[in-house]
């Protein structure tokens, strides 16, 4: 065992060093995307002169606040292909990182409460299957046998008519993803710098050449912005304006209960989704608040509306105590698809516009952005998500598949 590993027995990664004057790659944001980029830069391309600059602590943003759903049954071919590639990477990530990410692919059900919803879902299942993604429509009887703990489907205020069943969907422990990626990037030689806020981006001749931070100025060959909810603010440091608004998304958990629910249940009509965690808590979430904000504080109306709707599906939750609730920021685009790759400033790559669905994309974002840094070319998988699409009028609308269903 090398000496430095002896000294590291109680740490997942080295404490931060003094910032160097220059790095080949600077990654702004120590969430799942920034850390995945550092991991794949090292693993796939041997690029390790890399610094991840994080304003607070690693995983302090949406990375540590999400409801950990991973799935690939998006509506557009561009989206479905992209998220499917991410899911495949997640399937191998525990082994790749030598770290148990507790991935349970226990299935994902999107409930239909109307004929119209059934029709839209039938189409989505078809489109998914054409791309080789497991996705099928099931009827109410099948829903009832799969989720016997749900309220009688016909007696609900909004009766369940069927569901879109996505077998490979599941949950993966978000903190573990952060820690596993950070450890891997650190071991490969990338530097992790928590407590380091980027306050400026130096652009010379239309090219990003470095950043300013609360710990001094650093130059860089390439700057990657992976700041999710704060993307508008960091991009503006380089003079880039984004089609993004930042909103609050909240979730809460009940006290732990015995194992009762082994699929993810989503209802767009009821604006609610429910899963049961490994600890037994019922994890319940909803949609974003419609107003924009950077303040991560929850609202009472969320708890009220959300518990009401959760009780429609699972009336026996009436006795469960609420354990804790929290909120995070979501960077929403007009078409519910992300903004990835190059922008009008050379040497500046973006991972933004993640709305309520970016956790599942972390591996493929890191993978493709690392490839773009190494080759200088935009990987085909992310080309549809270029910022320029808004000028070319080529939006990739995922509204139907991404509004409630994160």
């Amino acid at each position: 065992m090398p000496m430095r590993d002896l000294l590291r027995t109680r740490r997942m990664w080295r404490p931060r060093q003094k910032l160097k004057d220059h790095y080949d790659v600077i990654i702004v944001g120590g969430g799942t995307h920034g850390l995945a980029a550092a991991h794949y830069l090292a693993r796939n391309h041997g690029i390790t002169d890399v610094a991840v600059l994080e304003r607070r602590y690693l995983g302090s943003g949406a990375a540590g606040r999400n409801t950990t759903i991973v799935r690939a049954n998006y509506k557009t071919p561009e989206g479905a292909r992209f998220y499917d590639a991410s899911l495949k990477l997640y399937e191998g990530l525990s082994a790749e990182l030598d770290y148990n990410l507790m991935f349970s692919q226990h299935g994902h059900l999107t409930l239909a409460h109307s004929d119209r919803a059934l029709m839209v879902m039938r189409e989505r299942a078809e489109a998914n299957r054409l791309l080789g993604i497991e996705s099928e429509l099931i009827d109410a009887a099948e829903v009832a046998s799969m989720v016997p703990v749900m309220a009688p489907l016909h007696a609900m205020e909004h009766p369940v008519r069927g569901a879109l069943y996505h077998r490979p969907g599941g949950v993966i422990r978000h903190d573990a993803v952060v820690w596993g990626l950070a450890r891997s990037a650190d071991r490969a030689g990338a530097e992790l710098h928590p407590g380091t806020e980027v306050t400026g981006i130096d652009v010379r001749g239309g090219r990003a050449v470095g950043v300013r931070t609360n710990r001094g100025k650093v130059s860089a060959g390439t700057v990657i912005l992976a700041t999710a909810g704060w993307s508008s603010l960091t991009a503006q440091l380089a003079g880039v304006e984004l089609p993004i608004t930042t909103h609050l998304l909240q979730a809460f958990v009940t006290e732990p209960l015995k194992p009762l629910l082994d699929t993810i249940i989503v209802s767009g009509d009821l604006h609610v989704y429910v899963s049961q965690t490994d600890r037994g808590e019922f994890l319940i979430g909803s949609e974003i608040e419609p107003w924009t904000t950077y303040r991560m504080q929850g609202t009472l109306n969320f708890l009220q509306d959300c518990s009401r709707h959760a009780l429609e599906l699972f009336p026996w939750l009436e006795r469960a105590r609420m354990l804790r609730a929290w909120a995070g920021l979501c960077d929403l685009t007009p078409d519910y698809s992300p903004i990835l790759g190059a922008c009008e400033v050379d040497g500046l790559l973006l991972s933004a516009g993640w709305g309520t669905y970016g956790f599942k994309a972390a591996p493929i974002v890191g993978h493709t952005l690392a490839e773009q840094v190494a080759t200088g070319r935009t990987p085909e998988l992310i080309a549809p998500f270029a910022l320029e699409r808004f000028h070319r009028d080529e939006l990739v609308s995922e509204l139907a598949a991404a509004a409630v269903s994160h």
Partner: protein
Amino acid sequence: MSFVLHCPHCGPREVTDFRFGGEVRAGTGSRPADERALTRALYLRANVDGLQREWWQHRAGCGAWFQAERDTGTNRVLRTVAS
């Protein structure tokens, strides 16, 4: 817990009474010069962390649209004005 807006016509109400209409964009009203300018006006947003001038409608009340000045970092509403 939440925050409260003063409808210029009705008075203070919880935010859930209102429809959010987004930030007030400078220069809206004048005709965009070219296609890029049109896209900018349509999609790009300042999305500031701090004082933001924004549109609200008192949906559950008088129905009127008005403007508010809110600090998006704290959700404190500094003032509202009838439009």
